[in-house]
C-alpha cells in the first residue's frame, strides 16, 4: 500500500517547532507548554505508525444473472495488523444498483480479525461487467499517515436481458430441409394432414385412406405436411437509439426483444442467426441449440451504439448470414436512414421480412410550444408514412412500446401476414 503523510503531520511538526523556538527566543515557557502536546502527538503517532496488512478476497454469488435479480457481493477481510480506520470502496458498474450495504464504507479491524461484508446489488440493465476492484484507504490511530491501495479481485458478471412473455411466434413463410417444429407448406412425410391423392406404385400401405378409398372404389392415400425447421435472422439496428435521461433506451428494449425471440425460436429447433447492424457490423451465422442461444445472448451483451457517419448498406452484410428462405426479424427504432434502406433492400431481394419497431415516441420529450408541437406532429406523420411504405412492400411493421406484451406485437405481425397472403390470392 502506498503511504502518504496527512496535512496534519506537517502542521503539527511546524507548530511544535515554532512553539519551542518561540519559547527559547522570547523566554516564555508558556509557548513551550503549548507546543508540547503537538510534539507528543507527533512523536506518539510516528512511533505507532505501521503499514496495515490486510488480506482481501471478493466473491460474487453468481456469474450470470437476469435483469432485476439481486447479486450478492461478499468481501472477506483479514487484518494481519490492527487498522484503526479502513475505508473500502468497491465501484459498481452503472447497471448495478446497491440495495443492501453501502460502498464506500468505513470500518475498524482489530489484530487478526476476519470480517465478512455483504453487498447486495440489483441488476438494472443487461451487460457484461467485471466487478470487484477494491480500493482501500487505511489511517493510523492519530491520522498522521494514510495508506492507499487497490486490490484487483474482479469477477465476471453477465447480466442477461429478462425475457418477455411469449407463447406464439411469427412462423417464417418458407421452411428449410431439416426436421423441426414448423409445419411445412410442402407435402411429404409428416403428421399434419395435407391432402388426398390416388395411390401410386410404391406408396406405403399405412398411408392409404381406407374411408376415401371405399367411397371412390379405388385406392387413395393421405398426403402430409412435413415438420421442418426454419431459419430466422434477428436483425438488430444499432445505429442510433432514443434514450430517456438517466433511464432506458430503445436499444435496451430492442436487446430484450431480440434475446426473447432468439430464445423462443431456438426452443422450436429453428436455426437462429444474428446481425447487429450499426456503427460496427456484428453477425452470427444461423445455428441451433443451447450453445447458439448463449452465443447470441453474449453477442447481444456487447451491443452498443457506435456513432458512425459511414454509409452502410446491404452489401456489407456477409451473404452466408442470410440463408435463402430465412425470416429476417428486424428489431429497430427506425430512426436511421441506413437501417431503413437496408431493410427495404432485403425485402427487394425477396427475403421474408418482419419489422418490430421499438417505438422511440415514448422516449421523446413532450412538445411545449406551438412550433415544437408542429414538429412533433410532423415527425409522427413521417413515421406513419415510413410504416406505410414498408407495408406497401408487404413488410409488416408493428410498433412495440416497452411495458406492452411482445405477444401482442407478434400477433399483429401474424395478422398482417395472413391478410397479405389472402390479398395475394
Amino acid at each position, binding site marked *: 500500500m502506498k503511504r502518504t503523510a496527512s496535512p496534519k503531520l506537517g502542521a503539527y511538526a511546524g507548530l511544535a*517547532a515554532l512553539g519551542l523556538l518561540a519559547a527559547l527566543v522570547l523566554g516564555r515557557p508558556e509557548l513551550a*507548554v503549548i507546543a508540547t502536546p503537538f510534539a507528543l502527538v507527533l512523536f506518539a503517532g510516528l512511533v505507532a505508525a505501521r503499514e496495515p496488512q490486510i488480506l482481501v478476497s471478493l466473491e460474487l454469488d453468481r456469474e450470470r444473472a437476469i435483469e432485476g435479480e439481486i447479486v450478492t457481493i461478499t468481501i472477506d477481510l483479514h487484518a494481519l495488523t490492527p487498522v484503526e480506520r479502513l475505508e473500502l470502496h468497491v465501484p459498481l458498474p452503472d447497471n448495478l444498483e446497491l440495495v443492501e450495504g453501502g460502498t464506500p464504507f468505513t470500518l475498524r479491524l482489530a489484530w487478526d480479525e476476519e470480517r465478512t461484508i455483504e453487498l447486495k446489488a440489483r441488476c438494472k440493465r443487461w451487460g457484461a461487467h467485471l466487478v470487484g476492484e477494491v480500493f482501500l484507504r487505511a489511517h493510523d490511530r492519530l491520522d498522521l499517515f494514510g495508506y492507499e491501495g487497490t486490490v484487483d479481485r474482479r469477477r465476471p458478471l453477465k447480466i442477461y436481458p429478462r425475457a418477455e412473455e411469449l407463447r406464439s411466434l411469427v412462423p417464417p413463410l418458407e421452411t428449410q430441409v431439416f426436421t423441426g417444429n414448423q409445419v411445412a407448406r410442402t407435402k411429404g412425410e409428416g403428421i399434419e394432414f395435407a391432402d388426398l391423392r390416388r395411390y401410386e406404385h410404391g406408396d406405403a400401405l399405412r398411408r392409404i385412406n381406407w374411408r376415401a378409398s371405399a367411397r371412390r372404389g379405388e385406392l387413395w392415400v393421405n398426403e402430409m405436411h412435413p415438420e421442418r425447421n426454419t431459419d430466422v435472422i434477428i436483425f438488430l439496428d444499432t445505429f442510433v437509439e432514443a434514450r430517456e435521461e438517466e433511464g432506458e433506451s430503445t436499444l435496451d428494449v430492442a436487446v430484450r426483444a431480440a434475446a426473447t425471440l432468439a430464445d423462443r425460436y431456438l426452443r422450436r429447433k429453428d436455426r437462429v442467426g444474428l446481425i447487429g447492424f450499426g456503427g460496427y457490423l456484428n453477425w452470427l451465422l444461423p445455428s441451433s441449440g443451447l450453445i447458439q442461444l448463449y452465443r447470441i445472448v453474449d453477442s447481444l451483451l456487447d451491443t452498443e451504439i457506435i456513432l458512425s457517419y459511414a454509409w452502410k448498406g446491404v452489401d456489407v452484410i456477409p451473404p452466408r448470414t442470410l440463408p435463402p428462405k430465412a425470416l429476417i426479424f428486424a428489431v429497430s427504432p427506425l430512426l436511421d436512414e441506413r437501417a431503413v434502406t437496408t431493410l427495404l433492400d432485403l425485402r427487394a431481394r425477396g427475403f421474408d421480412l418482419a419489422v418490430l419497431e421499438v417505438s422511440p415516441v415514448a422516449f421523446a420529450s413532450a412538445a411545449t410550444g406551438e412550433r415544437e408541437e408542429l414538429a412533433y406532429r410532423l415527425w409522427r406523420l413521417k413515421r406513419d408514412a415510413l410504416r406505410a411504405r414498408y407495408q406497401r412492400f408487404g413488410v409488416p411493421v408493428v410498433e412495440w412500446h416497452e411495458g406492452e406484451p411482445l405477444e401482442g406485437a407478434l400477433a399483429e405481425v401474424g395478422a398482417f401476414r395472413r391478410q397479405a397472403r389472402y390479398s395475394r390470392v
Partner: protein
Amino acid sequence: MLALVVVVLLAVSLAVPLPSLFPWPLVVLAALYAWTLGGGEVDQWSPMYAGAFVAVAELAYWSVELRGRAQDSERLTERRAALIAVLSLLGVTAGGLVLAATSIDVGSGILLDLVGVAAAIGALVVVARLARTRS
C-alpha cells in the same frame, strides 16, 4: 479585533476546506497569547490553553475527514471524539508537567540556553528521522 480575524480565518479554512491553512489561526492565536503575557509572571493556565489548542486542531482536521468519510458502521465517530478528548487531557497534563519543570531552579546562563536549543533541535531531528524512516 485580531482574534476575530483568527476566527474568520479558521471558519473560512474549515468551510472551503483548506487543511493547509489550519495551523495559521493557531499560530496567530499563540502569538496573541504571547503578546498578552508580556514580561509578566508565568501563566498557570497555559496547560489549559495547550489542551484547547490541540482540541481545536484535532477538531479542525476531523471536520475535513468527516466530509469525505464513507458510511460508518463501527462507532468510529464516538471513538474519534473520545480520542480527541483524551488527547486534550493529555495535552493539559503534559503542559502541566512542562510548566512544573520550569519552576525547578537549575540555574541560568548561556550554557543552559545552548542546552535548551540543542534539546529542541534534537527533538525535531528525532521527529524528522521517524517521519523519514516510516515513509
